[in-house]
């Protein structure tokens, strides 16, 4: 197969370059043959994923890439330790895409690179494991689905909690009707973030390709103290970056409910007034007909704790009222606490009596197993790109409601646009910086 090479890409937009590619049938590695993977983005999550995949006997990490070469050593070290083979270190991820021996790309970049990185990988014939939130905006998510389907690629989104067996049991319990009819699901994601303290702009340090790092986003003056998570240009926001797991679990538990009819957001930058753009307080209500999904999230609640490490993989439950990553399912005949990170779930009857408890375990490995299995079998993965899109959509909808003044917005699932606010539709798609443009026709 001929993959998109760098020269071709630089001639024009992604779309122009993609039109030059000649597609092959999706490759499926034979059993016993290692799946060859390259990693794009060597921050904490990318390094973690590189290590975990490198530890698998059925995978070889052939490439590690990051625009910032200062990040190379930490990632290379863990991969070498895990697989006893040195990966190639590259600043530009397109070198991974150029290599026909590579089967898949792990995309663990900031949000602004998720969509284009995944689409370019599909065009180059690579399967993709992309971190969440899957896309920077609604339109981009739809394009990712189109690319995956057009090029017959597997895209697994890093929403691993839905792969956990205890989550499946919770879904079965809810769907069995033992809790009656479910009319309300409350999703929590309370965190504690520090204020950012912006310092003056600085020259781009040696060894850092800042232009590549910015990619499709505007190239703001280099300022390392400005957190990308807090800027719309690069991020969906720190709350969506985490609550997306909770929203995905809520959707999964409710049998993957597709699209809400409306959204209304409350909140803003209330506590961490440090020049950030993205809110520190986000409460959103999504109406799915008779079912209401509520999201409560904030960045200033130190007493709310994520699941402690000693509970994550044990036969213990968290202290639910102070569990920052819980989901509450409210039915006409019962109530359920569900906790992420292997915290398990507990169900109560109409009298408030505990009637069912299920301990949990985290499922990172199972999610990775599923990705590798799908690369071989060409099945759709557990967190397929369409699922990822419909979950990320909730984050985008809440953000857009906030950005238009916390207005209640009505959503048309056919066009994936808002029907009662033109201004809201301006946020459906971002401005892409040449040449890093996601084309209409992927």
């Amino acid at each position, binding site marked *: 197969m001929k993959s998109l090479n760098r020269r071709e890409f630089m001639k024009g937009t992604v779309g122009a370059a993609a039109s030059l590619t000649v597609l092959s049938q999706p490759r499926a590695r034979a059993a016993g043959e290692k799946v060859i993977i390259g990693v794009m983005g060597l921050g904490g999550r990318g390094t973690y994923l590189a290590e975990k995949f490198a530890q698998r006997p059925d995978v070889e990490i052939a490439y590690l890439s990051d625009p910032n070469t200062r990040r*190379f050593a*930490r990632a290379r070290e863990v991969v070498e330790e895990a697989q006893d083979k040195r990966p190639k270190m590259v600043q530009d991820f397109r070198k991974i895409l150029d290599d026909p021996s590579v089967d898949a790309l792990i995309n663990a970049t900031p949000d602004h690179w998720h969509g284009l990185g995944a689409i370019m990988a599909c065009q180059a014939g690579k399967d993709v494991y992309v971190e969440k939130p899957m896309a920077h905006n609604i339109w981009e998510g739809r394009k990712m689905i189109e690319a995956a389907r057009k090029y017959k690629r597997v895209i697994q989104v890093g929403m691993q909690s839905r792969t956990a067996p205890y989550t499946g049991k919770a879904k079965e319990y809810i769907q069995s009707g033992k809790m009656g009819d479910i009319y309300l699901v409350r999703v929590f994601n309370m*965190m504690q*973030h520090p204020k950012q303290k912006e310092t003056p702009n600085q020259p781009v340090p040696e*060894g850092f390709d800042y232009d590549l790092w910015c990619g499709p986003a505007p190239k703001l003056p280099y300022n390392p*103290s400005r957190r990308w998570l807090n800027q719309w240009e690069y991020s969906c926001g720190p709350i969506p970056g985490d609550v997306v797991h909770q929203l995905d679990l809520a959707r999964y538990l409710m049998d993957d409910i597709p699209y809400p009819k409306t959204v209304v957001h409350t909140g803003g930058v209330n506590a961490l007034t440090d020049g950030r753009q993205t809110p520190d307080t986000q409460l959103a209500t999504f109406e799915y007909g008779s079912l209401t999904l509520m999201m409560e999230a904030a*960045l200033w609640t130190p007493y709310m704790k994520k699941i402690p490490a000693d509970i994550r993989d044990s036969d213990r439950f968290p202290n639910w009222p102070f569990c920052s990553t819980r989901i509450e399912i409210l039915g006409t005949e019962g109530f359920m606490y569900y906790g992420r990170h292997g915290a398990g779930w507990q169900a109560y009857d109409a009298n408030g009596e505990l009637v069912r408890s299920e301990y949990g375990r985290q499922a990172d490995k199972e999610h990775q197993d599923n990705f590798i299995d799908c690369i071989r079998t060409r099945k759709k993965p557990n967190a397929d790109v369409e699922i990822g899109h419909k979950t990320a959509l909730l984050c985008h909808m809440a953000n857009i409601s906030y950005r238009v003044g916390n207005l209640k917005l009505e959503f048309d699932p056919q066009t994936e646009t808002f029907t009662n606010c033109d201004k809201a539709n301006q946020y459906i798609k971002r401005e892409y910086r040449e040449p890093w443009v996601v084309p209409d026709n992927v």
Partner: protein
Amino acid sequence: MTLRKLLLSFGIAVLCSRCCYSQWLEISNVKLRQESTELAGPKIMIEYDIIDPGISPESPAYVFVRYSRDSGKSWQFIPMDSLRGNGFDIVDKSGHKQIIWWGTSQTSFTDGNQVEVRVRGIAMARIPAGKFVMKSLPGAGRDESKEISPDPDLPLFYMAKNETTISMYTDYLNELGSEAAGWNQRMASENRCGIVRNDDGTYSVKPGRENYPVTYVSWYDATNFLLWCGLRLPSEAECEKTMRGGLYLDGDAAKKKPNPMPERRYPWGDESPGADGVFRCNYDSEDDGFAYSSPVGSFAKFGSPYGICDLAGNVAEWTLDWYSTSYHAGLDGFRMVRGGSWMAVAAACDAITGATQLPLKESSIMGFRGVKGPANSR
């Protein structure tokens, strides 16, 4: 280990120890005797020789003493505030030393025959109090929650001239005993560390690896070793000042030796580590002579303005400082690592680059060194 047992007989001086572990300073003729006093209970006199022409006020030794009262089964650190004399803590002159060990609860031994002491010394550099230039890259991993002074200043402190070596760490493990935490299987790696656990529960250094920096140590391992010595990890600010030097190399009190390059990028200046075919530290280059880490001090010629070696490259070094990224805050507690490593690109070996690591991480590219100074020195 050649620090020989010191038998204590009441009122009788007994013997000596000589250290041949790489990077402990050589200490010989250790003598120990217990003397009674009229009113203050017994005291212990410890004498030893430390003969090293390199010892000076700028490059002193840090000397600490550990003792056992059960024939070497367990050991304790003798607190500095129970010692008097000229041979403990910061020792800035070579020669014969005398320490008086006071403290009735510690020194009232009922069976003096079971008492042993071990005296160890580490080569240090003196970093005088004063202002310096701090310009860490926040995006490269600085704890943004810290208040960064625009005019940073640090009190006097001392930093080990070299990274903690494999043999020093093995000595520590052997003193802790076979059940001690602090060793992991990866430390047996021939090229990347070299500490083997023997069947009898003791630890050995693979021949030839004595003088290499210890690796695969977690932040906790490093901290425990330094507590054992009476030292601590450096802060990021201390690392940065030590790399560049203060505005005055003799400190703000003297101000006689202005630093010609207070904003230098690397300990030796601004030249890239491999500029002009001269290799100034051990980084990710096939031409610097080392495929993995190098023996400590291999690039001594390119040390910091205070004569401290391998601050750039070789192994990255744990620091005291937390990293509180917004994303992970409250959950994990990353610590900062400084100085680049044998696996890092040249630019990552500079004075400003830090990396984040979980404190439990045991890595072949990370080690540590000790600091003696005020507890909250930032």
